[in-house]
């Protein structure tokens, strides 16, 4: 390989690594935010991301009518329409992921905190009746009917249990998260039109070369991802630092009981935190489909684990740490893959994590949301 080629490859890897890192960073924010207020790793966050990729796909294909990759050509190439389409897709992802994260909190977490939870009780009641019915019949329609019939009595029962006012042990939250995560992923696998197959996404954005940078062609999708992620992070930091509700989030992260006696509605703040994380993951999901043109029911798993790694790498609970961790991981993975071969990519990511944690157990930036002024 000539020097020039190495040079070019290096910058190539840098651009793609930064873009990948930006996606990791956005998803990592969700882990970090929730950890900040609840001291809990939301292991179902990966599915919040996965749902976002499907929301983007459905927005583009079903609502806007953009053909899938294997079916047609790019309908919108330039101008206002393209911007509008991109905005619609990202909003679709953000809305669905945000709502998904909020629902997750109410169904999988809040009931365990023992603060009496109606939405969670109803959803869980339906899910339990539906599941029991699966044992006896395979007909989806019958299952749904039995599920609906069983909802009311079970919901009343669950509500009585949730009212006890005691919080479950920490481990219960973890199990609940893993359960919710598997349930969501499998539901998409079962009820999605293509079962467990991979989906090619739609032709939203033609990957044109926007400009040349140090001998490397920089594609438009990479630029959008990097700029978009920075905008999202800036908006989040401003929200957390400058608004009343944002101050409430920080107060809960720093001292939940004092926050309570000063009039902070802690359950609401937790909900907002999940919503923020979900919205960030939804934006990341849209960007992911822009660059990689694909999704699958289990796409959240590895990406989620990597993003969680990024969050820990940067210092969990620290918003800027999520960005830094994402970038370090994205770049490290890319350079490593080039040096040792693509199959080593995931190994490199985790070796990187272990190495950093050995020397800095609290991550690169260390401080948590609690101590940092963000």
């Amino acid at each position, binding site marked *: 390989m000539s020097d020039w080629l190495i040079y070019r490859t290096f910058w190539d890897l840098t651009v793609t690594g930064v873009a990948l890192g930006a996606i990791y960073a956005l998803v990592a924010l969700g882990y970090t935010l929730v950890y900040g207020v609840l001291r809990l790793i939301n292991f179902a966050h990966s599915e919040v991301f996965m749902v976002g990729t499907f929301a983007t796909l459905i927005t583009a294909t079903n609502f806007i009518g953009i053909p899938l990759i294997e079916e047609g050509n790019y309908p919108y190439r330039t101008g206002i329409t393209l911007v509008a389409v991109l905005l619609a897709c990202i909003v679709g992802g953000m809305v669905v992921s945000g709502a998904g994260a909020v629902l997750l909190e109410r169904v999988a977490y809040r009931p365990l905190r023992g603060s009496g939870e109606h939405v969670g009780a109803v959803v869980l009641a339906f899910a339990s009746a539906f599941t029991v019915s699966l044992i006896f019949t395979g007909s989806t329609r019958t299952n749904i009917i039995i599920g609906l019939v069983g909802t009311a009595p079970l919901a009343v029962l669950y509500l009585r249990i949730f009212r006890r006012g005691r919080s479950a042990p920490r481990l219960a939250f973890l199990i609940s998260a893993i359960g919710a995560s598997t349930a969501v992923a499998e539901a998409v696998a079962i009820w999605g039109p293509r079962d467990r197959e991979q989906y090619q996404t739609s032709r939203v954005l033609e990957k044109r070369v926007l400009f040349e940078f140090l001998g490397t062609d920089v594609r438009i999708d990479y630029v959008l991802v990097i700029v978009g992620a920075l905008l999202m992070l800036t908006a989040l930091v401003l929200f957390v630092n400058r608004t009343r509700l944002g*101050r409430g989030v*920080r107060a809960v992260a720093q001292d939940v009981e*004092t926050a309570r006696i*000063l009039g902070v509605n802690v359950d609401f703040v937790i909900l907002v935190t999940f919503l923020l994380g979900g919205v960030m993951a939804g934006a990341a999901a849209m960007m992911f489909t822009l660059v990689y043109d694909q999704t699958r029911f289990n796409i959240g798993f590895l990406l989620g684990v990597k993003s969680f790694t990024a969050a820990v790498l940067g210092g969990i609970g620290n918003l800027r740490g999520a960005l830094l961790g994402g970038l370090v991981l994205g770049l490290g993975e890319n350079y490593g893959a080039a040096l040792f071969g693509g199959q080593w990519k995931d190994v490199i990511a985790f070796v990187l994590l272990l190495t950093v944690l050995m020397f800095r157990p609290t991550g690169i930036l260390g401080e948590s949301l609690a101590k940092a002024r963000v």
Partner: protein
Amino acid sequence: MLLEVTDLRVAYGKIEALKGVSFGVNEGEIVTLVGANGAGKTTTMRTISGLRTVIGGSIKFNGQDITTMPSHQRVKLGICQAPEGRGIFPGMTVRENLDMGAYARVDQKSVAVNEDMERVMQLFPRLRERTSQLGGTLSGGEQQMLAIGRALMSRPRLLLLDEPSMGLAPKLIAQIFSIITEINQQGTTVLLVEQNAAQALRRADRAYVLETGNVVKMGKGIELLDDPAVRAAYLGGR
């Protein structure tokens, strides 16, 4: 009566920390709860703020039953606390900590909030000098001032103070107590919990003595100060 606590029972697991505590606070008073460590003073305060679930009895504020009301709604009614250990948000500036006091107010960003901020700064000039310093870097006395000032920012009808003198130098304690009296004279009702019984009883209109989860004695602050049993138990017999 502004605050009326009747037969309050609170348990940690199977251990009852409050075994039927009753007391009341009239509008405009300073009332103090004194007692040894583990008597249930802090538990009482936390329960009034809604941090502990009640297993029996009731709490009424201004005639309204608030026994099961969530904490944040109690603040809206006018109950705010400077908790034991001060509860300063270490990663927030003094200014942001004070802003947190006004969190539950409906008149956000109004002139009234600015006036209250000014009033707190006048009560505690030290805080004005340190507005952009992080809460975690303040000294113990400054943190106590910040905790009281922050509670005042909610414009409470009833101010709960849990051990405001804890860990402070004697000179500072005297200063904090005279500020508490001043706050009360400006129209805020105060419920004060103290281990430093001498100071608390001297300042209080009325006092209750707590012993292992029960009220064992009540009376005017100065009367209890002269009570031989109280002197023996809490004032070192002097």
